[in-house]
């Protein structure tokens, strides 16, 4: 699956904004991302497995609020960083 990463995360991906990752759920996919790019997951998911306040995750066009969200072949995941003040 294609994962599109916001600019604050590209220090983990050697500046790549689009990467590939796999998983049957969003949780699985995030673990695969962290396997490939160590440290990335904790910057967007906290220690209670909650999405951090100024991070939004979309599966295709739909914002998801739980890591249990199922994924299907061909889905496109967007990791968006927004609204963090001055």
């Amino acid at each position, binding site marked *: 699956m294609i994962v599109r990463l916001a600019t604050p995360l590209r220090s983990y991906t050697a500046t790549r904004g689009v990467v590939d990752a796999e998983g049957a759920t969003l949780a699985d996919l995030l673990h695969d991302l962290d396997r490939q790019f160590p*440290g990335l997951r904790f*910057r967007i*998911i906290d*220690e209670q497995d909650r999405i951090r306040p100024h*991070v939004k995750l979309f599966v295709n066009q739909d914002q998801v609020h739980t890591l249990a969200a199922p994924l299907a072949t061909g889905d496109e995941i967007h990791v968006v960083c927004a609204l963090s*003040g001055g």
Partner: protein
Amino acid sequence: MNDAAAAGPVALLIGTKKGAFVLRGDARRARWELSDPILLGHIVHHIVYDARDGGTVLMAARTGHLGPTVLRSVDGCRTWEEAARPPAFAKAAAGDAEPGRVVEHVFWLAPGHAREAGVWYAGTSPQGLFRSEDDGRTWQGVRGFNDHPMRAAWCGGGQDGTPDGPKMHSILVDPRDPRHLYIGMSGGGVFESVDRGGEWQPLNQGCAMDFAPGPAPEFGHDPHCVALHPLRPDRLYQQNHCGIYRMERPEGRWVRIGDNMPRDVGDIGFPIVVHPRDPDVAWVVPMDGTDVWPRTSPGGRPAVYVTRDAGATWRRQDAGLPAEKAWFTVLRQAMAADHHAPVGLYFGTTAGEIWASDDEGEHWRCLVRHLPQIYAVEVAEALR
């Protein structure tokens, strides 16, 4: 503990709201050169040099979007490696009465005891204590504090912390005994452990708590900064939300030495710094703690105050500082001393200026202007 004066170059490690900087000075502390920004745009609450190994620097960082982490440099802040396991609270188990806590930011970093190479401590917001035994690469919670049955009572709720989050700070290790630790919490108070963090006792007797009615309780206070003298570890100084204090151990009572400050200046501030070789000498930067608590230089006239008799008397040191219309704040990590003779003093302001004195506060000059809001200034005297 080595009490010899240093004579080499001095570097300042500067943490700001928008990244870190290194300001390198020569041995005379006359010429200074500012680095390019490090992690521009990252919120750097603390950047600390490890004098034990002469090289490691740890930095606490997060961004407006991304969660908190710790980074490590062993090449003079040129390259950085992120912790493989940053400080994080334990995941709550299903059915836990209390929701799982989340580290919002790492606020304070402190090298461990001189005999415990590679050990560091981190204090977080909300208040949590973490320890690394591998030079900052991985961090574990100090369960004796983080899981203590009184922890929630000590730390209070959302209304008991500072507006930008309750904080653990001033993690002090007794140079005689690595098991003997002090911590400060805003809010919560000063606490002590004699078993490396396994058990904790409040240490707030004698300290005022003007923001609560009735007699001062055992905990819930707001220490802004606590310092232990390295050559006389039984002497502690504290700049509190409610005054300046000194404590002599093993007695456990704070004495308000801020009562000896000029009444029109008061004894409210954030940092307190001790002389590296003279336990009777300490410096503070008073701020306006009247009415709505502007927390700016009183009257717009910034000054450092020094005591040379353990708080019996204080003297104003403002030569070179703005004489008027300067409304900055010096935060609790943003003042430091070097080990030269005479001692060099440094502070950073919320207005992005670094001020320095090479004669123990008698004269000041501005080294750098126009930085982002400065959160922390630490001295590194053998930075590669």
